[in-house]
């Protein structure tokens, strides 16, 4: 009884802020203005404008995730090999930007990349041609990588530190060179960290609208922007919810993948 009482705040919280909103999204997504059941809002993803935004979102998130992975993995390995004092400091440096507001950080990139921004000023100072940096897919990817990179580094770093150094020694001992050891021992053993890193970068990248608004202008619409506009500008909650449900399907797919790999990492699949 006591335990149930203690759990009450969390129950209220989950019902009020998770279950009810979710139920409302499904209600709006599956009905039209009159309240009648319809799949139109979900089918709306097939229209040229929406599917283009969805594919672009998937593509840019995928690219950001891949870039994050290739930046984070070597870094996590270097961190792992450092002495305790040193690696704590470096991890701290990577977490430090997260103490600043996410929007503020993205805004800073805007100032850097603008037509008359810092980077172009430096270029013109050296009489080099100015570049069109902002409002490009590249700028959005940069924003995603910059903001979400720590979420890739930390889980990989965590899973790497869990590997017994003697397991790596054993691989060398059995004749494997550094590359073979990385490929056959270190990477497979760090897979749970890699998969959760991928989820933690891919999911927020896929759903973001702030980064694409600030660094992509209004020229490049991601699925996040489309949904946001349906709610704020078009006031079409039904369509917005419908598209959200579609997006959720992709996120759930990613989660399923994550659990499957995590189980394997724990050695439960025999």
């Amino acid at each position, binding site marked *: 009884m006591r335990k149930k009482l203690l759990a009450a705040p969390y129950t209220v919280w989950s019902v009020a802020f998770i279950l009810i909103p979710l139920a409302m999204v499904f209600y709006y997504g599956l009905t039209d203005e009159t309240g009648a059941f319809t799949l139109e809002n979900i089918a709306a993803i097939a229209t040229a404008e929406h599917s283009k935004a969805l594919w672009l979102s998937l593509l840019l998130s995928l690219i950001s995730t891949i870039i994050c992975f290739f930046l984070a993995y070597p870094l996590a390995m270097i961190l792992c090999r450092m002495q305790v004092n040193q690696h704590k400091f470096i991890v701290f440096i990577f977490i430090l930007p997260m103490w600043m507001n996410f929007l503020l950080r993205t805004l800073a990139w805007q100032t850097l990349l603008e037509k008359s921004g810092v980077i172009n000023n430096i270029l013109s100072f050296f009489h080099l041609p100015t570049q069109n940096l902002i409002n490009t897919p590249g700028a959005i990817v940069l924003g995603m990588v910059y903001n979400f990179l720590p979420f890739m580094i930390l889980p990989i770093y965590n899973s790497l530190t869990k590997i017994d150094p003697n397991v790596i*020694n054993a691989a060398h001992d059995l*004749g494997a060179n550094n590359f073979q050891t990385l490929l056959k021992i270190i990477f497979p*053993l760090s897979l749970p960290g890699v998969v959760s890193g991928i989820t933690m970068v891919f999911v927020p990248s896929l759903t973001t609208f702030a980064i694409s608004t600030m660094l992509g202008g209004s020229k490049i619409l991601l699925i996040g922007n489309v949904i946001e506009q349906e709610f704020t500008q078009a006031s079409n909650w039904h369509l917005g919810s419908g598209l959200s449900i579609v997006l959720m399907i992709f996120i759930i797919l990613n989660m399923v993948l994550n659990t499957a790999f995590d189980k394997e990492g724990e050695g439960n699949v025999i």
Partner: protein
Amino acid sequence: MSTKLIDLQHITKSYDSNVILDDMNLYIRENEFLTLLGPSGCGKTTTLRIIGGFEKPDSGVVLFDGKDITNLPPNKRQLNTVFQKYALFTHMTIAENIAFGLKIKGKSKSYIQDKIKYALKLVNLDGFENRMPDSLSGGQQQRIAIARAIVNEPKVLLLDEPLGALDLKLRQDMQYELIRLKNELGITFIYVTHDQEEALTMSDTIVVMNQGYIQQIGTPEKIYNEPENAFVADFIGDSNIIDGIMVQDELVEILGAKFACVDKGFGSNKPVDVVIRPEDVDLVKPEEGTIQGVVTHIIFKGVHYEMEVSANGYDWLVQSTDMFPVGTKVGIKIDPFDIQIMNKPESEDEEAIAIDA
């Protein structure tokens, strides 16, 4: 005796300002079961890691079959290691674990299959091919680790406290199994342990180490019966280490009484350390003993009783199958060949070693 297979010459190794090994010289013969024995921090594991190639000595050379392998990485050495906590690849099946080294070497599938079967049979774990390491007990995992190492047909097998994590019964079983494996395979074993009983049971040669120095090298019998200094005597089994004076050849004075012994050449009236094993102290009727004392403690140990006898100001540790209740007046008698005489440490270094022990 056969040739030197591994030869360590003037090996020195330190971490920061800690000297782990200081000018160490040691050779290992082919087909030998050699044990590096010592307390933690004595440099035994570092020695093994230098032989395995996981550490580089600050100075000195490692010769393998006459060739300098000091700077050769571990994957190029003709030896394999069994690690303390098994270090199995948890993401692979048992068969994949055992096949790892063979696959790297590019052996054929049928050869690998045969080898897996052979190795599992050798360690008494037939049919475990498709199990995962996590589903095995500690002893089974250790046997897989050994199987994984020996399928590569190394010339030398390095074992770093491989039985440390197992319980007593299992440890004893594994000791016999290791001896059997060594005899069947005919390869050289270099074994690291801090357990003196393990060392005495399995080894051809024991190297007793302390604080980066080799204290004594010898057969188990020699190490046990004729320790060269107080550290070895104290570390290998229980012993009574008493200050004595060598009166003349074959006569030593301890605690005010003269005992006949078999040692010669120490000079006359020279201070020495006298080592007497507890099982070598004979308790007799007071009038028959060289010195007399009183039993102060007694513990039943299964095979024997362990007693403390206070005599001439020293508490003697005595092991006997006969029981003498606390308070009994007894005589102490020692056969001459059971008295081991050792020189007192001369240098301060040796002194430090003796005191630390």
